[in-house]
């Protein structure tokens, strides 16, 4: 199965669980005052931990690497489509909201985006 990735401008190497070298797809764009960050799971091309198992840490690493203020970030996780007939391999996007304190992100909450919401962010 080949994954579809419509919203990847670059790959980003990050530290996963126990510093395991890991990789995700990344697209960063500006929407007025806010920075939209789309992080995409790469499955077979990710040698380490998944983007969801280290969400807070990954978001912090991206903020640090690209000088993004967490308060002004819209953080989206993408599980890309895998061109499979099995529906759990369909492409889905989640908005992830965090509690933010002194640039530390905690308590992630995921909300799956519907088509209308996707059209706003993507």
């Amino acid at each position, binding site marked *: 199965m080949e994954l579809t990735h419509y919203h990847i401008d670059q790959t980003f190497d990050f530290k996963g*669980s*126990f*510093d*395991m*070298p890991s990789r995700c797809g990344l697209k960063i764009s500006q929407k007025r005052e806010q920075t939209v960050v789309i992080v995409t*799971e790469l*499955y*077979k091309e990710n*040698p*380490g*931990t*998944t983007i*969801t*198992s280290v969400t807070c840490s990954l978001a912090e690493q991206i903020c640090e690497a690209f000088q993004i203020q967490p308060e002004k970030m819209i953080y989206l*996780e993408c*599980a890309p489509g895998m061109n499979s007939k*099995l*529906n*759990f*391999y369909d492409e889905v996007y*989640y908005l992830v909201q965090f509690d933010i304190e002194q640039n530390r992100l905690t308590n992630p909450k*995921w909300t*799956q985006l519907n088509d209308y919401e996707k059209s706003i962010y993507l």
Partner: protein
Amino acid sequence: MKFKIIYPKWRKLEGQTTFNLPPHGPVVMAASLPEDVEVSFTDENVEELNFDEAVDFVGISMMLTVQIKRGYEIAKIYRDKGIKVIFGGISTMLHAEETMLHADSIFLGESEGRMEEVMNDFKKGELKKVYNFLNEHPPIEWVGPARRDILNRSLYNHKGVQMVDLFHASRGCRFSCYPCAVSYLGGRKFRARPMDKVVEEMAGIENNRLFIVDNSLAQDKEWVAELFRAIAPLKKKWISHTIADDPEILDLAAKAGAWYVYQAVFDTSDFIKERIKRYHDHGIGVEGTILLGLDDQTEDDIKRLIDFLLEIDLDLAEFTILTPFPHTKVWDDLYRQGRIFDKDWNNYNAGQVVYQPKNMSPEKLQELYQYAWDSFYKDESQELKMFKLFTKVIMKEMEDGTFVPRRRDLANQSFGKQVIR
């Protein structure tokens, strides 16, 4: 120095035939220990653990998520006595952060070439909290013959019939299957052991029946063909996971002693039907592994799937409930959606619903799981189907002169316990 390796017990699934196979992780790890380390091993599933045995250092080897809470209990008893405890194995890797809270040390990754450092640190009183080799796989050539000598073999015997020994010829998996964490654990790169070492180890196992536990025998057709040609002269009979769907490979597998395979059955398609037939055409039995509770399954789908299994003449079927083990896509999906309602690891036995299914209630899925087992084995019990499969391997062994009669001295024992007749 005496190093005690413990394999914690777990609660077996109700209503199913229990077979205790000799564990693989502990014997593979033991092979990487320095020579001066004396090893003592207890598999709690087949024998009592003696906490009074004099030991210097304890290693708890955990493969399954359902072992970890018992592992923590064991660790506490030893640590209260002042004995250091290190955890390792698949479940330690999946639950590393939590396991650290119960351990003096945890080992993440593969042990070949690493245990010298661990043991030296222990002797110096400088044991590290984490030995993290998750992303530093040792050269595959370093994987030596497993230390099966630490097993009490008579405990893995049912009424005189020796259980299969576990064996591996490769590590890693290039596939990313939905419910599986193997690619996280062993890496996404397929790593084949040198063929001469594979043959040497397999030949040395005092058992004609094996379970080749490689993640898949469909990752590299050329290598699989070479493997089958190399092991055929040993005349071993073996079980494995999926074999590449290729007539030449299946023919080689049959000649190399393929007894039966675990094959995932995920739909009612002609492809699956033909896939099973192709195994059978080569004299290879099939135990279907059927995952229940996927998001694309309704109650009707599950019932139709069970009818289909009976039509395609599977030799055995094993039903499991989708379970969100950490570091799998299942976990990511269900966790994001807030659908995991049970975090008691003792319930992560693949026979209990721990999440909210998409198309039915958890209770309904639990009911369908039981319905699946009952329906499939309604006309012919699991024991009888197993006996038929067992008869097939005996016939093959008799044909090539490798049949070994059951041990009469253990005819009244089952996994170390007296059989009440």
